[in-house]
């Protein structure tokens, strides 16, 4: 055995990383391209970003996206935390079933969820719009919040709850002063994860969105269908940046 390290792992790693990130890099670069055509470089420009802000359709889609993301995150933070609690604290025979039910949305193919939700809403004669998108997002966001909070609960010493009660705190004060502050990093991490998933969800949203409730990812798709303009590159770059920031905050919180 020679002491020299083989080069192949490094090469494979580099290739894989390139495959992952090169397209994204090209997209980001193109968004600053003054030329209309992706093939040729026309020099640096913020032209497409400026154009972006003049498109009412984009502003509308952004508003929809944020409304859905914030409301779905808030709802799933509450419901997901409660679900994690129920999964952790109670031991019933149905516990495994409960766990599977909460976990399944993470592994179900999105297209299947989108389709079934659409059929469900249509069957109930629910008007497709922001409300249906919100409900659809909550269904899968709950699972993410629940899983992250559950992981936090695994190494949570419940003696502190008894300690708080012992020191005179009723249920409400215990929840507010001890339980929630201790779980806050987990809940926040789960919520941010849910938030990022909500703002760039396309498949499910595509199925359950109605007229006037287009979100950014859906808009990007329809713009691509009408010919790829550099506008999409700029829009995607902004989405990417926002997602990146949120994800890194999430990671900081979970590491703590």
């Amino acid at each position, binding site marked *: 055995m020679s002491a020299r390290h083989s080069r192949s792992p490094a090469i494979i790693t580099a290739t894989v990383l390139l495959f992952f990130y090169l397209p994204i890099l090209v997209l980001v670069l193109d968004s600053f391209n003054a030329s209309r055509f992706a093939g040729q470089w026309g020099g640096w420009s913020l032209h497409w970003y400026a154009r972006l802000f003049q498109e009412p359709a984009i502003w509308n889609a952004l508003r929809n996206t944020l409304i859905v993301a914030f409301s779905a995150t808030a709802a799933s933070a509450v419901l997901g935390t409660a679900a994690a609690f129920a999964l952790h604290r109670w031991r019933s025979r149905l516990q495994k079933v409960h766990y599977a039910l909460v976990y399944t949305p993470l592994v179900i193919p999105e297209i299947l969820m989108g389709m079934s939700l659409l059929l469900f809403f249509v069957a109930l004669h629910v008007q497709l719009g922001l409300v249906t998108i919100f409900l659809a997002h909550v269904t899968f966001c709950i699972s993410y919040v629940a899983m992250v909070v559950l992981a936090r609960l695994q190494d949570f010493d419940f*003696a*502190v709850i008894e*300690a*708080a009660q*012992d020191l005179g705190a009723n249920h409400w004060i215990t929840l507010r002063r001890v339980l929630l502050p*201790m779980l806050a990093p987990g809940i926040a991490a789960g919520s941010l994860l849910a938030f990022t998933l909500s703002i760039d969800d396309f498949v499910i949203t595509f199925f359950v969105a109605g007229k006037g409730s287009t979100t950014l990812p859906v808009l990007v798709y329809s713009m691509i269908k009408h010919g790829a303009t550099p506008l999409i590159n700029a829009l995607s770059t902004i989405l990417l940046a926002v997602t990146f920031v949120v994800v890194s905050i999430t990671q900081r919180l979970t590491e703590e």
Partner: protein
Amino acid sequence: MRVRFQISISKSHLTSTRVPLHSSAMGDFLEFQDISKHFGSTRAVDHVSFGVKKGEFFSLLGPSGCGKTTLLRLLAGFEQPDSGRLILDGEDITALPPHKRPVNTVFQNYALFPHLTVRENIAFGPRVAKWPRSKIDDAVAGLLKLTQMEEKADRKPHQISGGQKQRVAIARALINKPRVLLLDEPLAALDLKLRQHMLLELDLIHDEVGITFLYVTHDQTEAMSLSDRIAVMNNGHVEQIGAPAEIYETPVSGFVAAFIGDTNFLDGRVLRIDEEDPNYCLIEVAGLPEFVCYNDKQKKPGDLVHLSIRPEKFHISNEAPKSRSGSKNAFRAKVEDVIYMGTLTKYWIRIQNHRLAISQPHGRFLLDEKPPRWGDEVWIWFHADDGYMLDRFNPSEADQAAEVETAGRPESRV
């Protein structure tokens, strides 16, 4: 060297040892009245009744699973008894939720709030109770001082050592001025040196604050050294309550005798009452010469007796005892094993089918006598007052207790 082994123990002094400083000899401050608690089909606590006096340092001692922690949790309010009542200072607190009970707990693993600093941890109780700010600050400062945690006041729990966490847990529990302070194996998570140190501190804190302490432990040394009184528990009931010396010297059952320290058990029968002194009787044990024993249980000829004789109550020598009064019982025996342990030497000796443990401080032997060695034919003797008649003897319980006792300290609570 005429009366070398003159022993005259009055049995009465045992009951009056260590009268607690703060207690007035009035009625019980805290009463467990016929408390029972089941978990599923397990009987954790089985019709337990006893009282604790005001200011007392009272210990619940027993092996894991004996119900001592359940009793503590019942008193703290974390569990509800199936039957029975808890009376604190004349008031029935059985139905009160934990946050309304005037008791506070020092938890086994401290259970400090990880997101709060030492200072905030200690101030938790008063803040919940909405004390005025200046009063909280004063009280916290006082307790930081008492527990010597002033310098670490602004650290978070994960930044301080185990012993320091322990002190914060105590300070946090004391700040509300509880009527009773409950301590759930507070030293179990500490290493030996620190444990010995905290033992002293606990004793000092108890003297300082004058609050009634209810202390749960499986460690007989802790209980013996700290307590005014101890309740020895087994299988969900209280075996015996008494001062440490009382429990050690006059155990009621085989379980207590074997759980607290080492002992030798002898099963025998009363032959006859001593003619000279009717307080003594002659006892016959198969395989041993008949011997004299103090008959505090008023046994009659023919009655079965179970004796507990502590290893240190025996004397062992290569030579026969010099004086042989009627109350001194001497046997010939063979040394089977010798274990030198520094402060004392432990002998295992055999007389026919009996194997007895004897422990002996050995300074005397090393100076003026040849110490017995393995295989030696020796004399052993004990005073008639040192054989103690047990009220109850269940061989399997006694074995179990001896096992737990010799297995040393289990580090975790079960």
